[in-house]
């Protein structure tokens, strides 16, 4: 492999990793607070469709991201109500959310676009090379000749790490998923913290979803997330609930997507189906490798019951 193809592969890795990183970082916060969100895939699809439709009608990319955030946040509130307030099982409600996500994005897409043959390509975030930096050999073009949403992850990851490990809020978040009663005994409302974390996760998943039609492709396709929400879930466990490691896991899984596309294009002798399932196989192996680590927040998935009355 020559230097150019490495450079292209790196660039593609970052692009493919970006939606995973958004969703994975959000989910890290949610799980740190004790809520597991199987419905990430649903959020991402909803975000993707919202963004596509917004750009289609307004041609405004920024507005598309804002709308994607607002709409997925709404679904986040519903999820939070069902799992935190009513204390419904998080796996079941997450599964329901995925179905609704697939259904509503597909339904509206067919009505508004596919059936009327209006499903045209839309404007996308263009590459925004950063002067000087982009001229660094090898890394420059890969890292600094990307679109703004990719740059967003450069900010998001350190910011997430700082919030989690260097602020009072992060401290409380980390406590909430481990020992919610300890947090509550200090006069902090666990329920509020969990609502916040769940909504934050839904917003980031929404951005990750929006990325697909308006930064990666220029088109919405039904089910276009193709399991990225579930991969993001595995990333969080593989990344040991630490934003920086989750980011690295995202790059790893992103690279499998990039490699898969690259190899397919290169017409290797490997059957293309094996390349297609590469990200899922790697995720599955990663799950087994990261098994049984007791790093999982202790109260993950368990509804918070206040003691006494």
């Amino acid at each position, binding site marked *: 492999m020559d230097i150019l193809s490495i450079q292209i592969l790196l660039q593609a890795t970052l692009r493919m990793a970006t939606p995973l990183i958004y969703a994975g970082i959000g989910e890290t916060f949610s799980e740190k607070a004790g809520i597991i969100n199987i419905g990430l895939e649903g959020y991402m699809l909803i975000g993707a469709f919202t963004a596509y439709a917004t750009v289609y009608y307004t041609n405004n990319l920024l507005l598309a991201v804002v709308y994607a955030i607002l709409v997925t946040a709404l679904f986040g509130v519903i999820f939070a109500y069902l799992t935190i307030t009513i204390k419904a099982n998080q796996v079941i409600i997450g599964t329901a959310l995925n179905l609704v996500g697939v259904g509503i994005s597909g339904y509206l897409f067919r009505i508004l676009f596919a059936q009327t043959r209006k499903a045209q390509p839309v404007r996308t975030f263009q590459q925004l090379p950063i002067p000087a930096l982009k001229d660094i050999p090898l890394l420059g073009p890969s890292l600094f000749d990307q679109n703004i949403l990719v740059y967003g992850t450069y900010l998001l990851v350190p910011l997430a790490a700082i919030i989690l490990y260097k*602020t009072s809020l992060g401290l409380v978040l980390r406590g909430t998923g*481990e020992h919610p009663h300890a947090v509550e005994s200090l*006069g902090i409302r666990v329920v509020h913290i969990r609502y916040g974390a769940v909504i934050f996760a839904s917003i980031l998943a929404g951005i990750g979803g929006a990325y697909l039609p308006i930064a990666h492709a220029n088109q919405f396709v039904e089910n276009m997330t193709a399991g990225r929400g579930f991969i993001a879930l595995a990333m969080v466990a593989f990344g040991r609930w630490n934003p920086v490691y989750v980011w690295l896991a995202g790059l790893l899984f992103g690279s499998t997507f990039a490699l898969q596309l690259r190899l397919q294009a290169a017409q290797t002798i490997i059957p293309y189906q094996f390349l297609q399932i590469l990200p899922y196989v790697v995720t599955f192996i990663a799950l087994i490798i990261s098994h049984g680590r007791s790093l999982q927040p202790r109260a993950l998935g368990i509804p918070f019951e206040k003691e006494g009355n």
Partner: protein
Amino acid sequence: MEASTRLQLIGISKTFPGGVQANKDISLTVKRGEIHCLLGENGAGKSTLMSILYGEYHADSGEIWLDGQKATINTPKGAISHGIGMVHQHFMLVPTLSVAENIIMGMRPLASFLWYMKDIEKDIAEFAAKRGMKINPSALVSTLSVGEQQRVEIIKALYRGVDLLILDEPTAVLTPQETRDLFETLRNLAKQGFSIILITHKMNEVMEVADRVSVLRDGRMIDTLPISEVTPSSLARMMVGREVSFNQEKNDTPCGEPILKVEDLTLIGEKGRPLLKNISLKVCSGEIVGVAGVDGNGQSQLAFCVTGLMKPTSGRIWIEKNDLTGKSPLEFLKAGVGHIPEDRHAMGLVLEDPVAYNFLLQRYRDNYFKWFGFLNIKTIFEHARRLVKVFDVRTSSVKTPAANLSGGNQQKIIVGREIDRNPRLLVAVQPTRGLDIGATEYIHKQLIQQRERGAAILLISTELEEIMALSDRILVMFEGRIIGETDSDRANIDKIGLWMAGMQPEEAKQT
């Protein structure tokens, strides 16, 4: 100079939904700079009273006065702002966070940055040192010993500006050395003007550390006395009541064959902490052996080991002639072991299932309940209906989910099921915890009947009265060991009380 009054509780009463009256018209005064012990048995109402003071429960009636002013406390946050702090029996610490992080959690606005953890840690270390406590603020809580974790809890409260500190059974989980350190710390704090309320049921602790002691019994305040006016035995009498009721009729059945034999049982827990140390005991047919002791001295682990639910690190367990060491719970069941577990909601019942199925449980493979390999629902329901009648379980139907029954009736399901299996050995752990007098009496009668039938019964309870009333022999556990043994005829409450506190009374050594 007479110390000023820090806290005054006047006429506090509290009844729980379900009708248990935990506090009846309790009044209490705590002075500045004193260590005030709140003594009483399990269920005497100590913890409820303190939870009211800390804003976790609301009293039905009564007043709280702080420094001569009437106060309303609705939440723990409100209590903290009134200068009241609480160290819970189960620590409220996040094990994956550092000491300093646990201490400052929630003290600053959520949006504030914590860049200077080093400064915060230094400040906490100095703060603690000034109050006579040594602590490493950067250590992870999960790496600390239990005693150190408790110190963190105390500092966490004090760092919030608290000057009235409640400690709920603080020594239940401590070693003697750690207990001595804790008391040293508390005395130091009292000298500096802090008021301390210590909830306990150990007489020796009261004698060692208290300035004054208040005794609670059955939700009532019995008396408050300065420490100079009490002795361990006078405290024991006040705590248990003048007469220990031996009202259960017992026939003298001769002790038969040994059923349970335990030899040199040792269990090492997580992080190498020994939970059981060289326990040897024997329970014979027709005998009730009571195991007394303060909660958390290895009784639960002993029960789990002799029912196969925990595998001991070393030592042997026989049921009759069979060596069952290291065998599965199923083998123990087959050998005729019955088990009334400690926490009926965590183990022993399937709350969502109908009453009938809760009577089935271990016997689901019995041929009696099978019909060509299928479960015979008719037999299961008939069996349940019979047991509901025999054991007086109050339920509208055997189809009702067990969750809908009261605690007493749920316990009767377990007791009935275990007794109906005609166990050779019955391990009964806290069989009457949380039950009213009627249900308690009923279960006691059942246990005695089993003894007369020839079963061996290992009764584990923290209720001394229960142990004294039922047992033929009494063992006392302390820190995973059996510290004393006595026949129930010669048992006296002072002696057992001292054993429970980990002390060896002179006259006890001959037994």
